[in-house]
C-alpha cells in the first residue's frame, strides 16, 4: 500500500503538462508546438480566459491534466497563504485551500511588484500538490486541495531570514521533496519523504546566505545528484543521502537563476552582473568550468537552451544568444524598455521573453536575431510563463491569464 502511495506521488512528466518550476524538464522548454506567438491582453486578442488571483506572488502557474494551480499570499504581512486550483479549459475556480502562515519576517516591500510569500512555484504530481511559502510552511495537498501532510520549517529550524524572501521552488525526485532554504542565518537543503513529509535527510549549507535559485537533479556516472547554486558556489549533493559530493567556486555572490542541464553539462549564471558558466559535471576528479562568458549575465531571469543555443536577458532588457558549446556570442540586442524579472520560456522554435511591464517579446530561437512579435498584457508580470497544450499561462499582478487560440 505504501509503495502504491509513493508511486502515485512521483511527478508525472508529460510533454503537455507544466507541473513544476520551468516545466516538465525543469529548463523552461516545452516539446509541444502550436503555442500562440501573438496576443494582446489589452484588446483581448487570444485571451481564452482571465481570472482574479487570491493574492500576491511571483510563483508560476503549474498545469497538470485539467488543473491549473497557483499559490498566493494576502492580508497584513501576507500571513494568509493560498493554494488555488482553476479549471484549465475555463479558468473557473475548482478549489482553494487557505492556510495560516507561521509568523515570519515581513515580506520585503521596498521595490514593486508586491512580493508576498509566494515566490516559489508549487509542484504537481498525479496525486499531490507540494507548495512552499516564504514563511517556511511546506504543505502537501491531494489534488482536491485536502491536506496530506504539513510542516512548518520555521517552527522546526528557526525563522527564515532572507532579505528578499526565499524563492527556490520545491523539486520532487525519487519520492523526495527537496527544498533549498538559503538565508542569512543557517542555510540548508532538506529532503522530505513525499508520501509522509518526514525528513529523509537535511544538509547544512555552511557559508551560504541569501540565494533564490531552484536546485536541479542531474545524473552523473549513473548516480543522481541535486545541484544547488548559492553564494559564489555550485555544489552537488548525493540525492539518496544528502552528502555533499563536490563544490566549485565559479559564481557571483547572489544566485537567483536556475541552471540548465543538458546531459552531463550544466549552465549557470549568478549576479549581480555575473558571467554565464558552462560546467562539465562528468569531469574527473570533480566538475570543471568549460567556458565562461563576459560578465553581462542576468541577475534574476534564468536562461533557456534550444538546441545548441543559449538564450538569456539581463535585468534591463538586453537579450543575448550564445553558442552553447563555446560560449561565443551570436547576438546581443535590446528587446524592450521594461525591467526583466520573469525567466524566458521556449517552444516551437520561439523564445518568449516577458518583461515586468507585461510585454512578451517573442523571438526566433535562432542564431540570427529576429523579433516575431511584441505582445502587451496590460498588467505587470513578475512570474515566468507556463506552457501547456497550446496555451501560454501568465500570472499577472492581479490576474491569471490563459492565452491561446
Amino acid at each position, binding site marked *: 500500500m505504501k509503495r502504491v502511495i509513493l508511486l502515485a506521488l512521483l511527478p508525472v512528466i508529460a510533454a503537455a503538462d507544466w507541473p513544476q518550476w520551468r516545466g516538465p524538464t525543469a529548463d523552461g522548454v516545452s516539446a509541444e508546438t502550436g503555442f500562440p506567438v501573438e496576443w494582446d491582453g489589452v484588446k483581448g486578442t487570444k485571451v481564452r480566459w482571465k481570472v482574479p488571483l487570491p493574492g500576491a506572488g511571483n510563483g508560476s502557474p503549474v498545469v497538470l491534466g485539467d488543473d491549473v494551480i497557483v499559490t498566493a499570499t494576502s492580508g*497584513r504581512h501576507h500571513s494568509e497563504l493560498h493554494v488555488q486550483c482553476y479549471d484549465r479549459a475555463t479558468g473557473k475556480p475548482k478549489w482553494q*485551500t487557505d492556510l495560516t502562515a507561521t509568523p515570519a519576517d515581513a515580506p520585503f516591500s521596498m521595490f514593486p511588484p508586491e512580493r508576498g510569500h509566494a515566490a516559489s512555484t508549487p509542484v504537481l504530481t498525479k496525486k499531490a500538490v507540494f507548495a512552499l511559502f516564504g514563511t517556511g510552511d511546506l504543505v502537501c495537498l491531494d489534488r482536491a486541495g*485536502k*491536506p496530506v501532510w*504539513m*510542516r512548518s520549517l520555521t517552527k522546526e529550524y528557526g525563522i527564515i531570514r532572507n532579505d528578499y524572501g526565499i524563492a527556490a521552488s520545491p523539486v520532487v525526485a525519487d519520492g523526495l521533496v527537496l527544498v533549498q532554504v538559503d538565508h542569512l*542565518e543557517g542555510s540548508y537543503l532538506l529532503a522530505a519523504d513525499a508520501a509522509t513529509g518526514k525528513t529523509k535527510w537535511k544538509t547544512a549549507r555552511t557559508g551560504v546566505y541569501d540565494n533564490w535559485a531552484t536546485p536541479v537533479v542531474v545524473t552523473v556516472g549513473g548516480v543522481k545528484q541535486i545541484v544547488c547554486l548559492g553564494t559564489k558556489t555550485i555544489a552537488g549533493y548525493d540525492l539518496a543521502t544528502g552528502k555533499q559530493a563536490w563544490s566549485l567556486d565559479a559564481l557571483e555572490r547572489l544566485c537567483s537563476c536556475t541552471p540548465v542541464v543538458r546531459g552531463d553539462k550544466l549552465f549557470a549564471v549568478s549576479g549581480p552582473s555575473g558571467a554565464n558558466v558552462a560546467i562539465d559535471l562528468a569531469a574527473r576528479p570533480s566538475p570543471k568550468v568549460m567556458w565562461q562568458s563576459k560578465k553581462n549575465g542576468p541577475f534574476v531571469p534564468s536562461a533557456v537552451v534550444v538546441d545548441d543555443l543559449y538564450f538569456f536577458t539581463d535585468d534591463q532588457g538586453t537579450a543575448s544568444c550564445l553558442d552553447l558549446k563555446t560560449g561565443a556570442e551570436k547576438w546581443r540586442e535590446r528587446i524592450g524598455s521594461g525591467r526583466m524579472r520573469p525567466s524566458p520560456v521556449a517552444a516551437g522554435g520561439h523564445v518568449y521573453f516577458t518583461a515586468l511591464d507585461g510585454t512578451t517579446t517573442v523571438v526566433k530561437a535562432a542564431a540570427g536575431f529576429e523579433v516575431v512579435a511584441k505582445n502587451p498584457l496590460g498588467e505587470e508580470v513578475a512570474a515566468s510563463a507556463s506552457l501547456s497544450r497550446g496555451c501560454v499561462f501568465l500570472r499577472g499582478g492581479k490576474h491569471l491569464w490563459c492565452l491561446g487560440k
Partner: protein
Amino acid sequence: MFRLSIFMVVLFTAPVLAGVREDIAALKNPSADPEANRAAWDRLVAAGPPAMLPILHTWPADDPVAANWLRTAFDQFARTHTEKLPVEELLAFAADPKAHGKARRVALSAVERTRPGTTVKLLPGWLNDPEFGPDAVAERITAAEAAEPTEATRILRTMFAATTDIDQALVVAKRLTAAGDKPDMVKHLGMVGRWHVVGPFPVSPEDGLKQSFPPETKFDLAAEYEGKAGKLKWSAATCDPAEGRVDLAKFGVKPDDGAVAYAAATVIMPSPTKVELRLSAVDNITAWVNGKKAVERASEYRSMYRPDRYRAAVELPAGESALLLKLTKTRPEEVRGRPGATAKWDFLVRLADDKGRGVAFTQPEGKK
C-alpha cells in the same frame, strides 16, 4: 413533545460532540502518521457545524501545523455548506478581542464568504483591536487617500494613535507632517531616542564578531579607548525624529576606521513592565538589557535594516534600566549600493507590547 425533542437532540448530538472533541484533540497534537491525521480531519469535516466553534475555541496558538490541520477542516466545511454556517456565533467569536487572533480571522473569513462586505463594515470600529487593528488602519489610510485634503487629515489624525506597525505609522506620520501636524513617532512607538555612542574600534569585521571590548564589561561615559586615528570617546546621539533610526555615521562613527561600535541608553519605567524589545540594524547587533544578553545577531554576512526584525521579551523593573548595543559591520561587498555611496550603519530600538504598541517610559536628560 418539546422535552422529547430536546432529549432526542442531546441523545444524537452527544456522541458527535464527543467525537469532535477527540478529533480536535488529535489534530491539536498532530501524529507523526499523516494518515491518522487525515482520518481525524475527514471525521471533523464530516461532523460539520458542531465542530466549527470548538475548533475556533481550541486554536493551537504555538503550533502552526496543528492550526492548519484544524483550519483546513473548518474551511472545508465552511466553503461547501455556507447555508449551514452558524453566522451569528462566528461573528461573535470574530468580534471577541480576547479570542485568538488567527482563529478570529478564520471565523471572519467564513462569514465574509457568506455575507460579503461584513469585514469592511466592521473594520472602522476595530482600530484598536489587537488582531484587526492594522487592517483597520490600512482601510483608513485607503479612505484618506480618496478623501479631499481636510477630510484626509481628519481621518489620519483619528488613527495615528492606533497605529502599532512601524510601516503604517510612518505613512500616517509623514502625511500628517506634510499637513502641518507634529506627530511624535518616537514617543508613540516607544522608540529609544537618546543614546551615547562610541567607535569604531579598530578591528576587522571578522575579528569584531569574536572580540569583546571594554564597554561590555565596564560602562564609563568618561572612558577613552584606542581608535585608528586617536582616542575614541562617547558622544551623545539622538534618533531621527521622523523614523527613529540612529545613524552612527552622523555622529562620527564611520565603518572605514573599524568594524565595531557601541551604543548605550537608559530608560526609566514608571513600574515593572514586561516589554518586547524590538530592534534592527544594518548588519550585526547584540543587545544587553541590565547586563543580560537579550538578542544576538552575529554573522560574517550582511543583513538589511528591517524594522522590528529581532525581538525579545524582557522584564524591566521600575526605575532605570540600562541598554547596551554592540554593532558590528560586515565586510563591504563588491557590488552594493551606488558606487561611492557612504555605507549605512544605523539601528533602531523600541520598547513595545506584544502587539507592537509603544510602551511608556522616559529617558534621563543630559546623561546616558
